[in-house]
């Protein structure tokens, strides 16, 4: 199969998945009995005009299949309805939340990859030694502890030293200079990102370790050693590069898990992201918000999965054969 074929095939799969997610979303909320869930126009305290407009926009007085088509069309225009709790368009609210989520999740995931790869490689290098056992066991337990528990532990341990909640210091009346503001956000980000790192790094360590062990048995590693290269050069230049291939798949597979973990972390540290938005929506029975949040998170995971597919293909063109 050619390169273009592979890209098209994966792209098509991603598109269909998006479509499936949208359809599930529609049926979950619209076809169930109970007007509180199904009726998008029942925005509390809304003017009759707004209700009317929503009814017409989403065709709430029409048959279900027509509603479905209208729903698709509205989604294409980025219209996800009006939040019950805030009386504002869901898409605006969620995009503002997403902007807060992305930096925290990116930093946390990146940290977990770095820690996972380094500890996995070092473990494999010293296979069977005490440090290897300690590191492997810590990784298994880090993976087993519930995310919210790890977050609470960090809260207890660092109470008073690092800010415990929110994204910035809200009691500053004068606007700060940019650098100071950035520093403020960074200190607030340490605990949430560290929690995400702890929940995610365990499986990375274990996979890198076993894949390194397999790679170290390859003939080209023997050749490298026969050439007289130093241990460090063999491990980091020759073995690690190939041992990291399974990591790309694993990271892609872990994305759903990371998104779920990030959601819990945002709740613990009141990080004003999309997870906290969805959690608040549960308490407020704000169904359009919940629906929109689910769609945006699913889209993001599908998109990142697609990117991971392309990266994998770039790294190892054999998979298309």
């Amino acid at each position, binding site marked *: 199969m050619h390169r273009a074929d592979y890209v098209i095939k994966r792209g098509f799969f991603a598109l269909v998945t998006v479509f499936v997610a949208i359809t599930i979303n529609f049926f979950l909320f619209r076809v169930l009995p109970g007007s509180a869930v199904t009726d998008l126009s029942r925005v509390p305290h809304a003017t009759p005009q707004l209700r009317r407009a929503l009814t017409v926009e989403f065709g709430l007085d029409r048959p279900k299949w027509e509603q479905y088509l209208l729903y698709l069309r509205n989604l294409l225009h980025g219209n996800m309805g009006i939040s019950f709790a805030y009386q504002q368009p869901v898409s605006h609210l969620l995009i503002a939340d997403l902007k807060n989520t992305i930096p925290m999740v990116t930093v946390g995931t990146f940290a977990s990859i770095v820690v996972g790869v380094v500890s996995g490689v070092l473990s494999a290098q010293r296979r069977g030694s005490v440090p290897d056992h300690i590191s492997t066991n810590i990784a298994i337990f880090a993976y087993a502890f519930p995310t919210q528990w*790890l977050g609470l532990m960090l809260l207890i341990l660092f109470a008073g030293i690092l800010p415990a909640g929110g994204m910035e210091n809200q009691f500053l009346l004068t606007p700060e200079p940019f650098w100071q503001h950035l520093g403020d956000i960074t200190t607030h980000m340490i605990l949430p990102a560290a929690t995400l790192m702890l929940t995610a790094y365990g499986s990375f360590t274990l996979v890198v370790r076993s894949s390194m062990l397999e790679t170290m048995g390859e003939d080209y590693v023997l050749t490298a050693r026969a050439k007289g290269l130093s241990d460090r050069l063999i491990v980091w230049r020759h073995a690690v590069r190939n041992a990291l291939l399974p990591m790309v798949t694993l990271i892609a597979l872990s994305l*759903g898990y990371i998104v779920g973990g990030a959601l819990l972390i945002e709740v613990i540290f009141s990080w004003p992201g999309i997870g906290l938005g969805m959690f608040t929506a549960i308490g407020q029975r704000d169904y359009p918000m919940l629906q929109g949040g689910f769609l945006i998170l699913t889209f993001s995971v599908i998109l990142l999965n697609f990117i991971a597919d392309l990266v994998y293909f770039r790294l190892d063109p054999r998979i298309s054969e």
Partner: protein
Amino acid sequence: MSLQVADPQAAGAGRRAGFLLDVLRERKAAVIGLSIIVFFIVLSLVAPYISPHSATAQTCAVYAPPSLHHWLGCDDGGIDMLSEIMQGGRISLLVGFAATLVAMVIGGGVGIGSGYFGGWLDALLMRITDYLLVIPDLVFMMVIADVWGASLFHVIMVIGILEWTTTARIIRAQVLSVRERVYIKRTKGLGASNARIIWRHILPQVGPLLIANTVLTVAIAIYLETALAFLGLEDPSVTTWGTILEHAFNRTAVSSGAWWAIVPDGFVIALVIVGCFLFGQAIEDALNPRLKVSHFSMRRWQLRPLVGRGPGAI
């Protein structure tokens, strides 16, 4: 409630039980894992008889620290933590095993149906599996659980109907290889029905794999239950390991410095999950011939000191 509940295919198992015994004999990790699981199952069975205090009534001061009478202290309602954790374990394990049972029936069914019959059924089922694999599960569960309403049954069903995908794929791969073996073709030639071939010949072959997946899924189900409970989607009238954490978080255990309301609970959850992980992983490793090859190559590496590099080399 016992392990057998989670294993719907207990029939025709003479050889399989032998296999499990072998795994237990050869692998220390399997013994440790199984002991942890059995310990917690027994503990939840006898919890009502041995728990030191009531798990629902107030027996001490609010957030009383650990003492001789209350080994793990008390929670925000003055309820003994140790008794609460024992009680919570009953429901948490019930959710874990019940959700796993649902997941294994769906996953095993989809995997076997898809692998054995192939064709359009395989294509359809595997597409569904692929889509469900990509959709972030906790977020999806949260949405469904919220629409359905908070109840124990809904939590079990939500976890069960979303956590079968990995199992289905692994079982399908195994069935695909078993299906092509000669004795299956001969049995077919002798006129055996599909149902009989699946029941008598395919199931025993995928049995150990199914058990490994069952154990691993129990861990995931318990983990997800704590997450759903933490988000407030668990029945408010039950006590589980998840709701204990949720109460501690929502009722200021952190700012009261009541670490005893949080720390032991997390260790108990982690211990059960690690137990399942060790046992399930040990069975999977025993089934996977590729790992033997890699062990072999490792032995080759341990010969390295002969090359004159000292024991510190790799």
